[in-house]
């Protein structure tokens, strides 16, 4: 076919800039969604602890919705659906201020929050009830027992799964290309259609994704060893 594989052809001038802008957008989207996911995940966990059944049902519904609907569809609901329900000024503001980035971050963050809430919950569940009971019996209140005894142990257990969620979140930001967020996959397609250097363009993107993913995986397995509690 006479196809010459030449990485240099996509790694110079404006194409290199496009890749870098794409990478920066991917990282910014990951960060924004991550912060939202952690905040919302902790809120969901706290709401679920309130002994009032309808709140528990609400959290369960939230978790099931986000786990059983494809992420791409959730992004579409936020990007196409939600703005159409807002009043006109809000819609104009969204359109003027890179609404696709904001809405993608919301969709990705809220979806990841469902998994974060589950991870924190299974961390708390894995702490034997006796830990809480003994804390109470030596005079801690509810908050003291949770804050000083249960949560420090539960979070240690929850950290490796949470790092794994971060990896999934990072990979899932690639779906934002479907609504035109200029992240790495989107920019790669741009480079590809301008240069016709298909394999070079995707090789660069693949290498970038793998490098960051392996970094996160390494952090995950390191924390898994580092935080493991001695069990007797």
């Amino acid at each position, binding site marked *: 076919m006479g196809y010459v594989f030449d990485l240099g052809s996509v790694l110079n001038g404006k194409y290199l800039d496009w890749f870098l802008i794409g990478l920066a957008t991917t990282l910014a989207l990951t960060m924004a969604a991550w912060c939202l996911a952690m905040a919302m995940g902790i809120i969901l966990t706290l709401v679920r602890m309130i002994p009032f059944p309808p709140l528990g049902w609400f959290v369960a519904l939230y978790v*099931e919705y986000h*786990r059983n609907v494809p992420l791409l*569809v959730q992004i579409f609901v936020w990007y*196409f659906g939600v703005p159409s329900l807002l009043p006109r000024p809000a819609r104009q503001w969204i359109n003027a201020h890179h609404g696709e980035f904001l809405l993608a971050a919301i969709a990705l963050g809220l979806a990841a929050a469902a998994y974060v809430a589950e991870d924190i919950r299974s961390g708390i569940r894995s702490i034997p009830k006796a830990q809480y009971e003994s804390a109470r019996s030596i005079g801690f209140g509810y908050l003291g027992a949770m804050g000083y005894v249960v949560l420090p142990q539960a979070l240690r257990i929850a950290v490796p799964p949470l790092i794994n969620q971060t990896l999934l979140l990072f*990979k899932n930001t690639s*779906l934002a290309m479907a609504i035109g967020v200029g992240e790495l996959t989107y920019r790669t397609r741009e480079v590809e259609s301008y240069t016709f250097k298909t394999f070079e363009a995707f090789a660069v993107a693949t290498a970038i*994704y793998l490098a960051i993913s392996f970094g996160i995986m390494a952090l995950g397995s390191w924390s898994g060893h580092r935080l493991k509690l001695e069990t007797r």
Partner: protein
Amino acid sequence: MLEILQNNWLLFLVGQYPHGPIGGLAMTLFMASISLALCFPFAIGLALARLSPYRWLRLPATAIVHTVRGLPLIMFIFWTYFFSPLVIGRAVGGVETLVIALVIYEAAYLSEIIRAGIEGLPKGQVEAATSLGLRYWPTTIKVVLPQALHNMLPSMVSQFVSTIKETSLGYVISAHELTFAAAQVNNVLLTQPFEVYGILALTYFALCFALTSLARFIERRISGDRGGTPGVTIAA
């Protein structure tokens, strides 16, 4: 919302069929089933290779699994999209592209489930088979895999749910499936995006939630059978 459903339910169900390619929910289910079925042998192979005592089998298998886990599915879909016409030597449609990409991607994830299932078996099973004089393959095929696969049934259903959700990416390469059908409806109606995508989300939810519940039910049955915890359930 009901009006949209009344006017477009056929498009959601089977796409433009019989006036065009079959699509919609039917295609989504077909692609998910065939991908899972086709990736099964690869997944078992990868899992056995990862548990193998030989380094030259273990290392490549581990590398493959980690590489696949480190990349977004959309990257696989694009690689398949551009590469498979070169390999096969003719134009490849969206559906075929998506199925090929899903088979590779799911094989890596499913192999982790199978590996967990095999590692979850009591060591005595292999030891007993060996002491009865069975070699590696008879032990694996007649003793290890049947029990491991039985215990993994709930995880397998969860994996089917993941695959159904992942077929929605077919939209990006214009494979005719459920999400693509909804986008078509939305392009015709233009003014009711929330309703159209709401219907789409509810359809996926009804299907996947039913399957997830089935997985939980099987899991309870199996742990009842064995009086212990079955293989690790990987969250959908």
